[in-house]
């Protein structure tokens, strides 16, 4: 080999050997503790039950509901169109493949929002974007759409509009007419008890 090649050959060899011997590069994709604390204190990760219901009804293609409870609870009840990724599996490769899809907003929910919030923290540290938590979880879902009382008569029109919306959501997801409970109870009061009473009165 001619002498003029010695320096470039030595340079290539040394540089490539140093590359192999360099300490492994640190993974910077994880979030710093300060940044994580700031994001945890921010409430922007929470999505309300009303918003989720509205987006479900509008069939928003960017909404991806993720149930982080175990599969037994998921099979008993889950929100329509949601996907089950139990929190134990959240770091598995196939789960990460799903959660790293672009253009989707992942909303985690659990029975309340504690488990979903823990999942959110883990994934935020992994550097995932577009992840949210359903505020109050399934408990809040039921409270909002199934057990909430009608507003007082003196309430303003906005509250009535919200109540109407929630009743609409209930009808959409269960198929029962929104005002059926009141109607049936009203019928019971008017028809059956009064007839019985009158019959009894007549008997005396």
């Amino acid at each position, binding site marked *: *080999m001619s002498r003029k*090649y010695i320096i470039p050959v030595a340079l*290539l*060899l040394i*540089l*490539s*050997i140093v*590359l*192999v011997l360099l300490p492994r590069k640190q993974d*910077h994709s994880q979030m710093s503790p300060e940044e994580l604390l700031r994001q945890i204190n921010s409430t922007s990760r929470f999505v309300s039950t009303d918003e989720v219901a509205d987006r479900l009804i509008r069939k928003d293609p960017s909404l991806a509901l993720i149930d982080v409870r175990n599969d037994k609870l998921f099979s008993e009840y889950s929100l329509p169109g949601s996907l089950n990724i139990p929190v134990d599996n959240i770091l598995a490769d196939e789960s990460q493949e799903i959660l790293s899809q672009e253009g989707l907003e992942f909303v985690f929910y659990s029975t309340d929002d504690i488990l979903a919030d823990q999942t959110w923290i883990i994934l935020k540290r992994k550097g995932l974007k577009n992840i949210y938590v359903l505020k109050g979880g399934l408990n809040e879902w039921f409270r909002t759409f199934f057990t909430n009382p009608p507003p007082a008569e003196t309430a303003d029109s906005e509250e009535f509009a919200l109540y109407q919306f929630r009743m609409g959501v209930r009808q959409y997801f269960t198929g029962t007419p929104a005002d059926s409970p009141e109607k049936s109870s009203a019928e019971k009061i008017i028809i059956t008890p009064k007839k019985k009473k009158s019959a009894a009165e007549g008997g005396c």
Partner: protein
Amino acid sequence: MGPLIPNDIIPADWNNAIALLLGMAFGFVLEASGFSSSRRIMGTFFGYDFVVLRVFFTAAVTSMIGILYLDYFGWVDFGQLYIHPTYLMSAIIGGVIMGFGFALGGYCPGTSYCAVAIGKLDALAYSIGLFIGIYLFTFAYPLLEGLYNGSFMGYVTAPEVMGINQYLFVFFVVIAALGMFFVATIVQRKVKKVEY
């Protein structure tokens, strides 16, 4: 041109101007290295001139090592780089056809334009043949489509497919390149010199 245009450092209108300048620079370097002579490329095939092998492998290992160092120091994000998709069968068959053309004509597409620019008639014939080939390929496309789009492996790199550390892979490529340079020097010494 990344990373300057996607980051709004220079406006996107500069794309074509930069492409023109880079193309001219590339053509100049090819011509200056003597790649506009078909005999030089043929030399690799017949064993009397290995400049092509040395230039391309030096370019490959230099850019590999350079990119990995830039990535290591955080100046370039390796994950953001464009990786050409791998269609294994069409790459193998296309590579064989291209190698055949190389050995037959003494040019690759880039060097043939270089040689046309300095007025070489064989390069002109080669470039016209290239366009005829592209034209005929469009008619044969329905027949070749399965092969063309088949055995798709995704946007993968060789170390990923082999499952080895990319730094180690680069080291092996450097060793292989240096080994080839060494063997080429010995072969060149034994083959009769060709003056051109």
